[in-house]
């Protein structure tokens, strides 16, 4: 079989196992994203307080604190300037719980199963494909690591959580729960950037939250494996749909005897490759 043209992507998988099964992980991801958002909204909307706060920091069932690692790092960086080291047990437990969870199941699971911006950029990606938009700004994948380092430097110099002033992810999530103000403009900007200027520009190249989570999850236990890679017919559909497609070839096309596990921390464990492959090459599994 030859490489599937862009417009035909996904048809083989749907034909092989039906629409539902061919979108299994997409549906699970959307359900997960919306469920978490709903949990946060239950309190403000109808007074059922299962989770308080937002993604930056929250309290589950009035007992378990959670704290976003990037917020934590900005606090540490800012504290250098302000001689503030007032971090209490609540914050430390919170950041350990969140980091620990993502260390185990893959840092960028946050990106594909939790982050609200994922729905925005996925829409941009889908539309970019439909409108057959090509080209745009070429960014390096590593840009996000520089952004991450840069924002910590700025936080250290200004003594404040500098990135949280403009972080579109937290602006979107906080906006959904507490009121958006002009925050929509930032979300729209990310959408337009991904649609018109750079495919997968935000999540795949710039977002420092994704960068940090890829570092956190670089040794995670849960991975996607190209278990049946001998069945691969080279249609390239997985490569087309994967938002971080540099992670696939080492596992899929490597020589016999190498591991079929996608080991890169950049992999978001989104399951797109599992859904799209009509040969059932990929599946979730433990790192080995």
């Amino acid at each position, binding site marked *: 079989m030859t490489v599937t043209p862009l417009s035909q992507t996904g048809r083989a998988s749907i034909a092989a196992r039906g629409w539902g099964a061919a979108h299994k992980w997409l549906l699970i991801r959307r359900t997960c994203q919306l469920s978490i958002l709903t949990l946060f909204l239950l309190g403000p909307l109808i007074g059922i*307080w299962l989770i308080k706060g937002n993604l930056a920091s*929250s309290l589950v069932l009035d007992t378990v604190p959670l704290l976003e690692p990037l917020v934590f790092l900005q*606090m540490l960086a800012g*504290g250098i300037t302000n001689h503030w080291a007032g971090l209490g047990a609540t*914050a430390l437990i919170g950041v350990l719980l969140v980091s620990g969870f993502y260390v185990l199941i893959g840092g960028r699971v946050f990106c594909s199963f939790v982050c609200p911006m994922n729905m925005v950029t996925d829409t941009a990606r889908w539309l970019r494909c439909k409108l057959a938009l090509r080209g745009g700004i070429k960014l390096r994948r590593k840009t996000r690591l520089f952004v991450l380092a840069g924002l910590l430097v700025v936080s250290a110099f*200004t003594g404040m959580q500098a990135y949280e*002033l403009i972080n579109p992810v937290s*602006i979107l999530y906080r906006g959904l729960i507490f009121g958006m103000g002009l*925050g929509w403009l930032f979300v729209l900007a990310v959408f337009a950037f991904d649609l018109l200027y750079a495919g997968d520009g935000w999540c795949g190249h710039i977002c420092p939250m994704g960068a940090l989570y890829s570092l956190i999850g670089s040794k995670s236990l849960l991975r996607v494996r190209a278990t049946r890679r001998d069945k691969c017919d080279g249609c390239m559909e997985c490569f087309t749909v994967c938002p971080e497609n540099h992670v696939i070839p080492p596992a899929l096309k490597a020589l016999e005897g190498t591991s079929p596990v996608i080991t890169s921390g950049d992999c978001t464990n989104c399951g797109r490759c599992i859904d799209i492959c009509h040969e059932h090459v990929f599946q979730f599994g433990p790192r080995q």
Partner: protein
Amino acid sequence: MAKEPINRRRFLIQMAKTVCGVSLAGLLMGLHARKSAALPDKSLRPPGALSEDRFLTACTRCGMCVQDCPYDILKLATLGEATATGTPYFEARTGPCAMCEDVPCVKACPTGALDPALTDINKAHMGLAVVIDQENCIAFQGLRCEVCFNICPLRGKAITLEYRPNKRTGMHAIFPPVVHSDHCTGCGLCERACILEEAAVKVLPLKLAKGELGHHYRLGWDQKGEQGKRFPTADPMHQYNLPQGERYDYAGRGLMEETSKTESGKTPFGSNALHHLNQGFAGGLKGGGK
């Protein structure tokens, strides 16, 4: 994937592009952060908030203080507002702090941006009420108002009424409100209650409202209260260039001879001051008066 081979030139150019781009973005972000660090005059932080610079380090913008505020007066600043994006604040004129006794907002804070040491809401200093427009405050015109005085949760402590004669009528009194910063919590009830179109009493951030005495100042009466004596203690002996054995009496007797036997007994000089003054001419400088 047809890639150019990575060589040093290409690598350096790529690095330069990325570093320059990120640095530029970082610079803009830093400038924006600096600007955001200035809290607008009308925005007041929840009780127990750290100083503004530390608050911006510590606050995660989670909004749990907002969610736990039973009176819904706290808001998170949205993008485009002057207050730093996502941080909690309230405005006295539209929604003053109800000063809950159990301070739920402070308890909700996961990082200590609202200092858990604040357990008594009466000790909060969210801001300071200032009777800022004495030309329009009707109490200063000799009219009876006293609304701010009466609404104050620390009535009679944070705001008191002064008593002045009304010089305009010559027969009435004026009762101007006076705020005392040691008791004012900055809750903002007075500002909301002010009957004017634009409040004459406003709660300002402490930094704006308070002056600060030079650190070398010592107020004698405070020192006396603390130590039971004046400090620095009064000069026991005037250190003028008076001849030894002489002192100056302020009560009117002027330059006078020391009378104390013990003092004069110790001095190597005679009791006549002129001997001492002329000593330099007579036999060289010996000691000399201080």
